[in-house]
């Protein structure tokens, strides 16, 4: 390893520690390759540390807590995304009525969240209309 490499290492150590040029008696800034020294100054000054979003940080904290609990209790590791619950109101999780096709590939459809709310409202309105129509006819 050359002296130049060792000197630059000491210089970087000094820059990161907030000293202008390392231990004075041992290191003269003139001994450093000026371009590499300037690059070290720029990187020390301008490279920032990033932080993940707080939402991500808290979600991962919760997952680690669940894993820690499981390890402590010697249970199997919890599933990602929490427990899987049966969708209420239909065997096999299908929203489609028994007399209607389940879907293009014959699979049951499980729809979540806002889409499910929209379908429920539309389905309830449709059923009410059909019942009303039958009674009228």
């Amino acid at each position: 390893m050359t002296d130049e490499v060792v000197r630059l290492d000491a210089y970087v150590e000094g820059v990161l520690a907030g000293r202008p040029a390392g231990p004075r008696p041992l290191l003269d800034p003139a001994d450093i390759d000026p371009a590499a020294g300037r690059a070290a100054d720029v990187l020390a000054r301008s490279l920032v540390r990033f932080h993940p979003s707080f939402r991500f940080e808290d979600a991962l904290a919760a997952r680690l807590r669940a894993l820690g609990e499981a390890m402590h209790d010697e249970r199997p590791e919890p599933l990602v995304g929490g427990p899987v619950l049966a969708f209420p109101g239909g065997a096999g999780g299908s929203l489609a009525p028994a007399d209607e096709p389940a879907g293009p590939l014959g699979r049951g459809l499980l729809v979540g969240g806002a889409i499910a709310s929209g379908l429920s409202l539309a389905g309830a309105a449709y059923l009410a209309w059909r019942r009303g129509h039958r009674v009228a006819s």
Partner: protein
Amino acid sequence: MFRKAAERGRQRLVPFDADRSAVEAARRDPRRFEPLYRKYVGQVYSFAAYELRDHHAAEDVTEQVLLQALRGLPSFEERGDGRASTFRVWLFQIARHALANEHRRRARHPQAPLDAALDVSTPGQDPAVLAVSSDETRRAWQAIGRLPAERRRALTLRFVEEMSTPEIAGVMGRSEGAVRVLIHRALRAVATELERD
């Protein structure tokens, strides 16, 4: 007396690990991992972000690393065999392996890289200073991004994570001398890039 001295001489020299008490607590009870998590989540994420240059990919790797660290904590051993082997070094070794896997996955399934738009504004800072420093940050980020992986990694660990040369050697599985040479070459390459801009 001599026997006692000889026994003392055989005792291992263990580097000081600032995390020792937190690590011991989490080893005894994995539910007490959170202080270590809060301390290191940003560092691991930042390391991954410099390496992958993609916010979502960096989050994925951060998650993998910290879950793996908690699972592997019972097997972590602080060592003093010449290379720094603290919890932090061990954690970043896990991160390095996770990043290598991510690079391999990307090579199999190439994606267009999304360069992070940097906004490092500090409230109350002079806009002129802010403009210069932001531009400088962008140039430094780009210069680092053009380096070969090993050099980029070494500079990130040195300047962003502010690790010592022995720590970087421990993370990268290289000798301290090799790390110094790597950083020296990387800084010269960055200097060339900065002068070109």
